[in-house]
């Protein structure tokens, strides 16, 4: 790519060439250099609780069966028969002891090992012609998990997931470790939007600025009291390790009062205090910041909001929900959204029921927040396709002065107990941090992966 270095240089100084949101050449580079080496979320262990349970998930065009084998080990198997390349599993979810290819009948145990190869002796001369012993469906080059969140990487030399996440793990715990039982996922809802995958990831990473404008209607109908402009800018953004997110500043109180304020019942609060570290508790209890949206590079996002879910009562009767979502790229101008509802497994059933309702009203395919977000992102993507977008450098320098110094100072540890760097108020520090990681990936060619030959004695 001829002006590749210039694009990355512009991105790094916060001046974004608008066409990166709809550019085939950029997309091909992303496929190789972002998705070819990053850890990509594929499933949560609660989606496949029993031996044989599987879900089929993709990393771009590569289909993987994420399955719990008979011994309870979670595996990610490339969904392609070793013989002629058929998908051996054409369902999205199910339970199977074996996967049998419909083309010629090769079959595989749910740990990937070949178990059936019709006419092995007659057709291949047995092991002498095709070494069946030890052959398996190709495993994902790397698989790792954090608190039940299963990720794979197409780079066999990827660093351990925990190392990749870095200090973001501190914030991940607010979503996935509200008790020692962890979360359970439902879904995902899946739908396609004509929008570039980066836009959602950037938005969830740090865009507090859009909330009062894009989501005005949600405040007007009394669904969510928080996003009023004056209130939202009291929150802070933070970036730590592989991700970053946004927070709301809650009214005065301690940890318990503030968790009650967003609608958690006391028994859940008791479990949170048992499973979060002292600094994790201090960030809410002492410093008053409650996590809301977040993204982990490249395409995994989270949201935690607390809307009003029932007619009775006043606006103070709110209930929190958590959603985990993935921006699965389909092309430069299209993304499949996978949106899960997540809830603490130990939560009371009534809480789970209402939290699910809160999720459906706010996010996901029919969610009232999400509806307006997507309208914006589709419009941006469409406009980014043309030649004028190649001239325009979008100013993504909010929070920075001309000399590169910040408008506000980062919060000191006495005001923000979490790791990383946090700033109060509207800024685009996190979007820039995300795109800097993107630029770091894009400038490094991926190492050529070795060929895997099957059955050669």
């Amino acid at each position, binding site marked *: 790519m001829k002006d590749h270095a210039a694009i990355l240089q512009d991105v790094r100084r916060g001046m974004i060439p608008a066409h990166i949101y709809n550019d085939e050449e950029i997309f091909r580079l992303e496929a190789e250099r972002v998705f070819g080496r990053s850890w990509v979320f594929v499933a949560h262990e609660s989606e496949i609780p029993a031996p044989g349970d599987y879900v089929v998930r993709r990393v771009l065009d590569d289909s993987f069966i994420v399955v719990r084998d008979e011994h309870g080990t979670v595996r990610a198997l490339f969904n392609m028969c070793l013989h002629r390349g058929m998908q051996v599993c054409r*369902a999205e*979810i199910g339970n199977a002891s074996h996967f049998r290819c419909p083309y010629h009948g090769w079959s595989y145990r749910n740990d990937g090992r070949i178990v059936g190869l019709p006419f092995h002796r007659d057709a291949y001369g047995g092991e002498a012609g095709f070494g069946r012993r030890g052959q398996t469906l190709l495993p994902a080059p790397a698989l790792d998990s954090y608190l039940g969140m299963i990720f794979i990487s197409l780079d066999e030399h990827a660093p351990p997931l925990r190392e990749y996440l870095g200090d973001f793990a501190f914030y991940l715990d607010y979503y996935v470790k509200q008790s020692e039982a962890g979360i359970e996922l439902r879904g995902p809802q899946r739908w396609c939007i004509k929008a570039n995958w980066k836009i959602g990831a950037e938005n969830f990473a740090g865009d507090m600025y859009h909330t009062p404008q894009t989501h005005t209607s949600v405040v007007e109908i009394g669904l969510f009291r928080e996003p009023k402009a004056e209130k939202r800018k009291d929150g802070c953004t933070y970036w730590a390790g592989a991700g970053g997110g946004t927070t709301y500043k809650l009214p005065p109180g301690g940890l318990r009062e503030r968790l009650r304020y967003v609608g958690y019942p006391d028994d859940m609060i008791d479990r949170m205090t048992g499973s979060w570290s002292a600094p994790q508790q201090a960030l809410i209890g002492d410093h008053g910041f409650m996590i809301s949206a977040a993204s982990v590079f490249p395409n995994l996002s989270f949201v935690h909001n607390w809307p009003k879910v029932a007619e009775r009562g006043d606006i103070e009767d709110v209930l929190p929900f958590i959603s985990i979502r993935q921006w699965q790229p389909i092309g430069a101008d299209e993304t499949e959204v996978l949106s899960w509802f997540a809830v603490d497994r130990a939560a009371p059933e009534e809480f789970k029921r209402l939290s699910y309702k809160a999720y459906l009203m706010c996010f996901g395919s029919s969610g009232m927040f999400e509806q307006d977000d997507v309208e914006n992102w589709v419009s941006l993507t469409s406009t980014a396709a043309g030649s004028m977008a190649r001239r325009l450098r979008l100013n993504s320098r909010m929070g920075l002065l001309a000399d590169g110094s910040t408008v506000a100072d980062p919060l000191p540890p006495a005001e923000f107990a979490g790791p990383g760097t946090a700033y109060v108020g509207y800024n685009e520090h996190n979007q820039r941090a995300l795109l800097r990681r993107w630029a770091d990936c894009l400038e490094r060619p991926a190492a050529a992966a070795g060929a895997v030959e099957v059955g050669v004695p």
Partner: protein
Amino acid sequence: MTSAERSGERSGERSGERSLPFGDERHLLAHQWLVDEAYLLDAQDYDTWLDLLTDDIRYLMPVRVTTALGAGFDTAPGMAHFDEDKYSLGRRVARFATEHAWTEDPPSRMRHFVTNVRTFATADPAELIVESAVLLFRSRGDVRESALVSAGRRDVLRRTPTGWRLAARTITVDESVLRMQNLAVFL
């Protein structure tokens, strides 16, 4: 979720009973009810539409999933696109009435095509079950491709002192991955 809960429902179970003859008055009124409703949805006259729903309405659109033949389920366990009551439907309608529901400003051009209507009597003469197919065409702006949603519906219509009202609707969408940017629509 436990392993038993992991299996979703089998969607779109058809009633074993025979549908009412097409000349039956109850079928005629049910069919007309659906066509009149489609007019309101196309016109986005949602306040009027909301009045046609009973206060205990359950409005459900499960997420469909691709499963092996014989798996026994084809919906995502515990997850839906819509799982609404009168309050949440009311909030959605109220949102469209604000001046800031950007996804429908400018509004979509929509057409709900309703067909394959079958009506079933129930033990309660004040309730009818009505099955239908709906194809929603939605066009936004001038450069975007239009979008379609195809679904089956199974409704419970209830006779009330003010006329027939929708008491329950289950929407069986025909795609596991929707090709529409959002469901800022009703089916």
